[in-house]
């Protein structure tokens, strides 16, 4: 096999992994601050993907242009979910939170099924079939755009948490819940904001992922599972970990498909997860509890 195929596949895996990483970043942000595991994460992503399809087919709006508006819509959805449904469950046992979010996931899947039907849908933009020729490499243009947008969004999120007072307040809640209450922070509102930010990541990732894969209502659970694999590999609660986990999983699956058999790609990503759990249970960039 020519050497360029390895580079081609590696680049493709990294770019896809970046988008997966952005999706997982949302899960990590929510868990890192609110300490609630969002079991409806993939389903929220399918909402974003369907919204992108509706906007594209109805109004001709390119999903890449709609990344920020869709992130806004999902932010509002996430904020409302946290403020209205999840906040009362914050102090309840974890299994109550689990059942609540699984119920939300099932409701989302079935509503999407009723509204859009079971057919796979996708968006075919003018650049859907474009690719860049870089020397011997052929790089999927859509993946490049999506990967670049992911890097920008992630950088903005890092900047928000590091430099903006509101972001610092959210980090304070994550670091010390009681301390945050003592200094007078409105923790419940900050939790809702955090859930909204996590959902916004999902909205942005959904707008980009719809350019790469077909969406069906049943896609949600697979995406939730993928997000879990990524954040556990990268480190639950770690933002850089989520991005690194996404890239690692994307790369592992791509290279496993090339070196071994493509039908066993998932086996290798789960294998990586098992290795991480065995040798670094907190995840690659996670902090030990």
């Amino acid at each position: 096999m020519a050497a360029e195929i390895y580079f081609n596949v590696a680049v493709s895996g990294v770019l896809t992994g970046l988008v997966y990483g952005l999706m997982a970043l949302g899960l990590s942000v929510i868990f890192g601050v609110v300490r609630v595991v969002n079991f409806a994460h993939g389903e929220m992503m399918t909402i974003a993907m369907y919204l992108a399809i509706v906007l594209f087919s109805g109004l001709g709006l390119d999903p890449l242009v709609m990344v920020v508006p869709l992130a806004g819509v999902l932010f509002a959805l996430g904020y409302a979910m946290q403020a209205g449904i999840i906040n009362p469950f914050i102090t309840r046992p974890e299994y109550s939170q689990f059942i609540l979010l699984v119920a939300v996931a099932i409701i989302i899947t079935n509503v999407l099924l009723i509204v859009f039907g079971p057919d796979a849908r996708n968006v075919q933009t003018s650049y859907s079939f474009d690719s860049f020729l870089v020397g011997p490499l052929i790089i999927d243009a859509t993946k490049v755009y999506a990967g670049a947008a992911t890097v920008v969004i992630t950088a903005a999120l890092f900047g928000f948490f590091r430099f903006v007072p509101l972001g610092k307040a959210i980090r304070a809640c994550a670091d010390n819940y009681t301390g945050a209450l003592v200094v007078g922070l409105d923790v419940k509102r900050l939790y809702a904001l955090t859930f909204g930010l996590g959902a916004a990541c999902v909205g942005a990732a959904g707008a980009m992922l719809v350019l790469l894969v077909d969406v069906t209502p049943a896609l949600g659970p697979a995406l939730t599972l993928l997000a879990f694999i990524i954040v556990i590999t990268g480190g639950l609660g770690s933002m850089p970990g989520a991005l690194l986990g996404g890239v690692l999983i994307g790369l592992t699956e791509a290279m496993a498909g090339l070196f071994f058999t493509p039908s066993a790609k998932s086996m290798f990503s789960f294998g990586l997860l098992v290795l991480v759990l065995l040798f670094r249970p907190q995840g690659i960039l996670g902090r030990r509890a």
Partner: protein
Amino acid sequence: MRRTSPINCARVTRRSFAAGAGAAGLLAATGTAFDVVRAQSGPLKVGVLLPRSGAQAGIGQDCQRGVELAPPIFKALGLPELAIMNADTETNVEVARARAEKLINDGAQLLVGAFDSGQSTAIAQVAEQKGIPFVINIAAAPPITEQGYKFVFRNFPTAPMILSDAFANQKELFDATGVAPKSVVFMHVNDTFGTSMQQGINAVLPRFNMPYKIVEQIAYDATARDLSVEVAKAKATGADALLMVSRLNDAMLITRELVKQRWSPTVVLSMGPGWYEDQYLKTLGKLSDGPMSFVPWYDPNKKLAQQLEGALAKAYPGINMNTNHVFTFEALLVAADAYKRARSSDPKALADAIRTTNITDNVSIGPGIQFNDKGQNDKLKNAAIQNRGGKLLTIAPKTASNAKPELPMSPYDRRG
């Protein structure tokens, strides 16, 4: 002295006995008549199991069109009415099994389905166990009719039948065009159907002395979201053409990747569904032109095929008739024909009637619908079709063709 009885009952006389015997005879006769009426009256309850959601939803819903077209045509043919009970297998073997059991519990007297070999295998086990006839519309895995089942019938070619005809038709096309690939990459889904076809191809290919060699075999997940690695791997072999056993979504993903990765094979030779589906043609437009599918098909020259095609065009304008419509329709045709001849909805009588089916006025290619001892229609023939301008043209065998083949395929980057 008059004899009395403690019970005040009428005495039996010769006259009353005769009257009673007559009445009993009339009652018995009427009862039998009622029984006959019960057996013949009312539509046969047919449970139709299809993957209406999940990865195969598009194909399952396409099969449903074959169900919808049947009633007026059956009426015109003088066949009895069928009461259709729809069920969704959700593209899942275990769900297919559970739905089959539920349909039978709800009163289904015959089952039809289920497009997929894995799901059909599960339903066949339930049907056999419960003693309810099961007519398979589409499923190619050979073992289904090799189990000695008495209630399972298949009017669809097995994988070896499809493959034998496919290789024969390919040779005919290569000879006709003077173009033949020297090497191919064989890509296939890793589900029951794909694996059966893969085993069949490896077994059958050496017997046909084909002009090409398989340089690489690539199995992939039928529900994969991204097939870029698979296509990159296939392209890297430098093969002339692609030999495919796929489904619908993966066929579209592979085509997109072929375009993105700037690889135009001489031809795509498909041994299964996906590449000729209407959703494939509509979604990909000009990019859908060129692939050749070697599939169980209809004979455009048969009267019933023309009738079905006309009904489809009227009910679903813009939809091309395909395997899904034809074989789902024919499965129901088998059911209606058997019900008419059995004059009963008794499962055993229906199964016996299906076993002696001899329908020559049918849609698919071949002499007609008959079943061998194993419940398999082994007389079916397969065709080669090519996508051109959003239409599906039959290009082989010559006896059932309506167009000439175009080989090699036009490169993807020169389609405007």
